């Protein structure tokens, strides 16, 4: 059989200081990026129209003008802070993002006049295709607006609050479930690990200024689920090993459990990573942020299970006096045979 990991024997818990250093480093980098950007006048995160309010117009051209030409046309309409984004996979499409406009002058009938002004700007390149014709069917037309998203500022704030409360509520729900199935020390470990994952992903979004939109919230909740899955797989094994090897230190049982489940961790997360990679590569512009969030999240999710969740659970147990945080002297020599031995178990009745 093909096997990636068999009988590995790593003292994961002993490396916790290194792990904490790595996590703190990434989080600090993210914090630095967020705070630095705020101080220097730009914003910490690249919030999409979903959360900030504004208009996104997706335009398809027959002959696409350059970004500068489009920007100049928009400026002639008094829109100076538009973001013009060329589609990565479709050469003739452009996304024009305009923040909420307070004025409406010649666009009186529209609550949010963004689309109307963008259309006026685009009309300088030629006529838009008729409503019921595609761009190809209308010979005189030079472009067509194929998609519009408008979010008012009030709705944007509302969506932002909903996103934050959904993520927090998700964490609380999971905290209670794990506390019910295991105990509070594990629940705290898993939830802190997940919180760490969300923060690390946010750090990446701030550093690289990827756009945060509604789909990113869905990605966050998914990575919360996935990261907790990893933790549960290890916790489950710890619990099982505890009933099998009474008297062993929890420190060692935890190391063993991580090692025993390592091959599952790598295979599953490797495959999830492949699926997510497919989403990044083929999922198109709409799912880009979503896929990137999951890409970062699935990597940090695997890492945090080993590096954050278990150490915190054991650390807490050591505080309440159930476990020892250091590797006991007498067991150090026995570790080499540990995983072999632990595979001989009796079945656990549940």
């Amino acid at each position: 059989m093909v096997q990636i990991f068999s009988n590995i024997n790593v003292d994961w818990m002993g490396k916790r200081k290194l792990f904490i250093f790595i996590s703190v480093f990434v989080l600090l980098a993210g914090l630095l990026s967020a705070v630095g950007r705020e101080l220097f006048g730009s914003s910490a995160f690249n919030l999409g129209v979903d959360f900030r309010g504004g208009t996104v117009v997706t335009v398809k051209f027959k002959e696409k003008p350059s970004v500068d030409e489009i920007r100049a046309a928009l400026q002639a309409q008094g829109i100076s802070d538009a973001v013009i984004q060329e589609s990565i996979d479709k050469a003739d499409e452009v996304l024009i993002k305009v923040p909420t406009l307070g004025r409406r002058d010649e666009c009186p009938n529209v609550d949010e006049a963004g689309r109307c002004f963008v259309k006026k700007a685009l009309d300088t390149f030629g006529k838009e295709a008729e409503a019921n014709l595609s761009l190809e069917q209308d010979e005189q037309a030079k472009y067509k607006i194929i998609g519009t998203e408008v979010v008012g500022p009030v709705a944007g704030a509302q969506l932002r609050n909903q996103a934050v409360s959904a993520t927090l509520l998700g964490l609380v729900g999971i905290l209670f479930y794990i506390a019910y199935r295991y105990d509070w020390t594990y629940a705290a470990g898993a939830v802190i690990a997940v919180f760490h994952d969300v923060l690390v992903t946010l750090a990446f979004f701030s550093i690289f200024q990827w756009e945060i939109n509604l789909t990113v919230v869905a990605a966050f909740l998914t990575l919360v689920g996935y990261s907790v899955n990893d933790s549960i797989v290890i916790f489950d094994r710890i619990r099982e090993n505890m009933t099998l090897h009474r008297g062993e230190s929890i420190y060692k049982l935890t190391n063993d459990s991580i090692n025993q489940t390592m091959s599952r961790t790598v295979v599953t997360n490797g495959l999830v990573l492949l699926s997510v990679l497919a989403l990044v590569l083929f999922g198109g512009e709409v799912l880009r942020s979503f896929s990137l969030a999951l890409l970062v999240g699935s990597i940090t999710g695997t890492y945090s299970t080993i590096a954050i969740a278990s150490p915190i659970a054991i650390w807490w147990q050591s505080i309440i006096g159930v476990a020892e945080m250091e590797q006991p002297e007498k067991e150090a020599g026995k570790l080499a045979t540990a995983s072999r031995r632990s595979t001989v178990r009796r079945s656990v009745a549940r």
Partner: protein
Amino acid sequence: MRKRSGLWTRTVISIGVTLLGIYMVFGPRSGISAKDFTWEGIKKNLSENVNLGLDLKGGSYLVMRVKIEDYLKAVTDNHRQAAFEAAKEAGLSVTDATEIAENGNYSVTLTFSDPSQKDAIIEAVKKKVDFNNPIAPWNVSSTDNSITWTLPLQSQRALAKQATEQALRIIESRINTFGVKEPTLQIIGSEDSGRILLQMPGVEDPERVKRLVSAESKLELMKVVSPPYPSPVQTYATREEALASIGGRETLSRKVFPYVEREETTNGERKQRFVVVETPAVIDGSELRDAAAVSRTGIEGDYQIVFSLKPSGAQKFGEWTEKNINNYMAVRLNDEIKSIAYIKSKITDSGEITGRFTKASAEDLALTLKSGALPAPIEYQEERTVGPSLGADSIRAGLSASIAGLVFVILFMLFYYRGAGVNATIALLLNLLLTMAAVVFFDATLTLPGIAGLILGVGMAVDSNVLIFERIREELLAGKTVPQAIDLGFDRAFVTIIDTHITTIISAIILYMYGTGPIRGFAVTLILGLLINLFSAVFVSRTIFMWLLEKRSNMQKLSI
């Protein structure tokens, strides 16, 4: 060893559910014919069975809000006027009528100088004004010289709910008359939030519908303060002049509105003037029976609206016009006087609004007048419009991502787990098929994030298989026989699988509760995929292993 009959039951269930799934997704909904087995027939059935979201098939998604605070303000204003009139009609002396209508506080106060008239005023107002509405009652309090009616929070909510529902009905009649195909209209958030979601498949440019839906179209017929015909109607060049004629400010019974004259001046511009009208109005839009756009000349830009009144309105109007022959009457639409005419004779049930409309704008106006006025103005909060070509691109992107992901995963599983990889592949494909079947069965909507949910559901399915297989491998390494290893592997992994699934379902359910639009589609497919996975990865996969054991009962080596 398990009994043979157990294996048969499992097999029958597995195959039965699979066939049902295939039928749900690819089968016709009415009467099977030979055509349904051709490639074309399957494609047609698939597109009929699966309910695509607006982001995939194209269409417009609009979230709007009825301005509840404006509605409550209007209610307060009406009550203030009515209370004042009621006291006056009863011959009681009221010095002033004031109102508060901001920051969630709504109240009406009448002040008077004679404390002994207090009870009489309360009685008179009670008879005429709807302060004791059983759904939304007002609280009364008084001092020696004033009476105050306050609208408590609970009543505000009740009125908000009423206004939201009324707006929903009016919008519904407007879009139905306009001919939007298969629109869906629903209140989102709490019932009194005033938020309404309108989804219109296939609508690419929603501007006209948006205008139509939000048109206030508040129509009122009012008496103009002016000397009667044959004197020309009294108009003023500025608002200030008009106000000066009524003592400097608008009063309870006199209001000033702009009026755009019909005749163009020599340089083609039309002059805006101001007129003073009497309130309350003689007739308002709620008395309309019908309205239509007509043109005498047929020239674009020369349309007008003729309307007729309901019997009750017609009677009122008839009586009033009879008494006011030769007086001037104004047609007010929203905040502008559209036309002014003198009353030649008693008019009972019809009238017209002139004002140089284009054909489309006259038709839209007639339609919105017929549907009735909105209880309060509407603002748009969110709009997402996707053209059919962008939708088709998204379908293509979602499909290629799914297929690429699936191919990666299957290739790896076959390479890494060999024989058992076939098992996993069957479980994955079955998961995908049955999730789609569940989407069809529950009539859920498949969106682009929904497709991502399918892919992630497949990720969880892989995880279940990996957990089981790794466990079987461990047990084999520990020296268990093949049947023992399979039994133990499934039993032990099952506990973990349940826990991992429940935690993911918890976060997906929360996403469903909080998410709107396409994001909900993600939560739906993820939840369905996870539930189905318990069947496909655990039940069916185990059945296949049991078949393998059945065929070779003394199996020494397992391809895993």
